[in-house]
C-alpha cells in the first residue's frame, strides 16, 4: 500500500473526530489545560520560587516537563476514551470494520484527534511559558519532539481504547499507569535525585524519555539521542500492538 493511500485513508477515518473537535474545541482545550496550569501555579510559583534546578530557574525547568506530561494526558485521555466509547457504547467502531480501510489507516486516523488536541494545548502552554521565564526557547526541534510525543501517546491511547472494555478498567489504567507516569518521570523534578533502583524503573517508562527530549530542546541542552530512539521504539511498539488487536477484532 502506498504512503499516499495510507494517509488519505487515515484522513477519512479522522473526519468524524475532526467534526467532533470543531464542535467542542474550547471545552476540550479548557479541560486539558486546567491540570497543567494548576501544576505551574502550585509547583512553579508556590513551591519553586527562587529554586534553581540543573542550572536554570525551577519555572524554566518545569515548563518543558509540564508540556511533556500534557502530551501524555491530553492525547491519551481523548483517544482512549473516545475509542472505548465508540466500541462499547456507540458500537460505531464495528461499522469501521466493514469499510475498505486498512488497519494501519484506522490506527493512524484515530491518532490524529489526539495529536491535534495535544499540540494545541502544548503550544498554548509554551506561549504562556514565554511570559514566565526567559530561559525557554521555542525551536523547530522542540515542536518536532512535542509532535512526536503527542503521536506516541495517541498511539498508546489507541492501544488502550482497543483493549479496555469499560470505564472502571479505563480508570484503573489511568490510576496505575498514566497518573504515576505524570509525576515520576522527571516532569517536575530531576530523576537524578531518586534512588538507583527507582531510577531503573523510571528510565524504562516512555514519559521519562519524551520529557528529556522536550526539555533538552526547550532549554538548549545537549540532545539525548538515546531518549529519541526509545520514544520511537515505544511508538512502534504501540502501533504494532494496536495492529494485532485490530487484526484479531477485524478478521
Amino acid at each position, binding site marked *: 500500500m502506498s504512503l499516499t493511500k495510507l494517509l488519505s485513508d487515515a484522513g477519512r477515518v479522522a*473526519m468524524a473526530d475532526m*467534526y467532533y473537535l470543531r464542535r467542542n474545541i474550547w471545552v476540550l482545550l479548557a479541560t486539558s489545560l486546567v491540570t497543567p496550569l494548576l501544576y505551574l501555579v502550585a509547583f512553579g510559583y508556590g513551591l519553586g520560587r527562587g529554586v534553581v534546578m540543573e542550572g536554570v530557574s525551577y519555572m524554566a525547568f518545569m515548563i518543558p516537563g509540564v508540556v511533556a506530561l500534557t502530551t501524555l494526558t491530553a492525547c491519551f485521555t481523548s483517544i482512549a476514551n473516545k475509542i472505548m466509547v465508540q466500541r462499547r457504547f456507540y*458500537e460505531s467502531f464495528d*461499522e469501521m470494520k*466493514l*469499510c*475498505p480501510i486498512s488497519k494501519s489507516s484506522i490506527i493512524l486516523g484515530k491518532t490524529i484527534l489526539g495529536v491535534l488536541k495535544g499540540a494545541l494545548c502544548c503550544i498554548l502552554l509554551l506561549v504562556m511559558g514565554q511570559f514566565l521565564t526567559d530561559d525557554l526557547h521555542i525551536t523547530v526541534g522542540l515542536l518536532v519532539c512535542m509532535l512526536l510525543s503527542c503521536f506516541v501517546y495517541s498511539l498508546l491511547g489507541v492501544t488502550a481504547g482497543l483493549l479496555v472494555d469499560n470505564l472502571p478498567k479505563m480508570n484503573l489504567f489511568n490510576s496505575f499507569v498514566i497518573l504515576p507516569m505524570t509525576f515520576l518521570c522527571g516532569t517536575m523534578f530531576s530523576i537524578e535525585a531518586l534512588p538507583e533502583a527507582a531510577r531503573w524503573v523510571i528510565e524504562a517508562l516512555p514519559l521519562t524519555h519524551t520529557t528529556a527530549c522536550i526539555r533538552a530542546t526547550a532549554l538548549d541542552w545537549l540532545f539525548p539521542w538515546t531518549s529519541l530512539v526509545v520514544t520511537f521504539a515505544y511508538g512502534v511498539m504501540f502501533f504494532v500492538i494496536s495492529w494485532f488487536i485490530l487484526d484479531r477484532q477485524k478478521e
Partner: protein
Amino acid sequence: MKYGDFTAVDHIDVSVRQGEIFGFLGPNGAGKTTTVKVLTTITHPTSGEVRIGGLDQRDHLEAVRAEIGLVQQHIALDKDISVRENIICHALLHKVPRHEIQSRMVRFSDAMGLTPYLDQVINDLSGGWKRKTAIPCALMHQPSILFLDEPTAGLDTQSRHMLWDMLRTLNRQGVTIFLTTHYMDEAESLCDRVSVISRGKIVDSGTPRELCDRLGRTAVEYDSPDGRQYRYFRDWNEGKSFYASLNSESAVIRGTHLEDVFLEETGRESCQAIEKALRV
C-alpha cells in the same frame, strides 16, 4: 457459531434470493443478531460458510463488504456530531467519490424525511430519528443487500410505517433486504419469505402464507381451566364446527396469523405456564 461452550447459532442453512425482502424472526436471544453479525462479516463463524452474491466471505472479504449495508440493532452512529456529518463520514469511509456524496445524501435524506434534521447533533434527536439516520448512512455506498437488525424496535407506529414504506421503495429499486424482527405484523406486511429461529436453530421457513397454512388457516382460541387454548384447522368450516361446539362467550374464531405460527414454534408453552402461575 459458538462463544466458548455456548452455541449461539447451531447449523443453520438460510438462502436469500436476490431482490426479495427476507425476514429472520425469533424471540430475544434466539440468535438473530449473531446471525446478522456473521452474515455481515463482523463476526467470523466457528464453522460453516457464508456466501454473498455467490462469493465466499473468507476468500472475497473486501468484495463482499462492498455489497453489504448494515443497520445495527444499537444505533451505531457518532452521537456527538450531526446527521449530515455522520452521513458524510460513512460515505468517506466507504470511499464514495467526493463529488457524489452531496447528491446521494440529499436523495437518501429526502427519502427518509431527514432533510430538516441534517444539522442536528445525533444526541439531540429522538430514538426514531436516530434510527432513520442510520439508514442513509448504510446506503451511501449503494450496497446490493441491506441488513437491518430489528430496525423498528422502539419506534412509534407512524415511524414504523414510514420505515416500512422506505424499505419497500428501496426493494423496488433492486436492493435485497434481510431484516430481523420479533414483530410479526412487520414480517407479515413486508417480507416475501421468512425463517423462524429459536434457540439457535431454524424451526420453519417459507412465505408468511405458507407458514400459516401449514399450521392451519383458521384459528380458534378459547378459555379452559389450563388457561387460554388455541386450536388450528385446515379450513374455516372445520374451525366453525369446533367453535360452535365450545358454546363459550370467550371463544374467538379468526384467520391464523404469523404471530400464531411464531408462538407455536418458539414456545407458547412458556406463556401458558406464566398464565397458570399467575392464576394460582
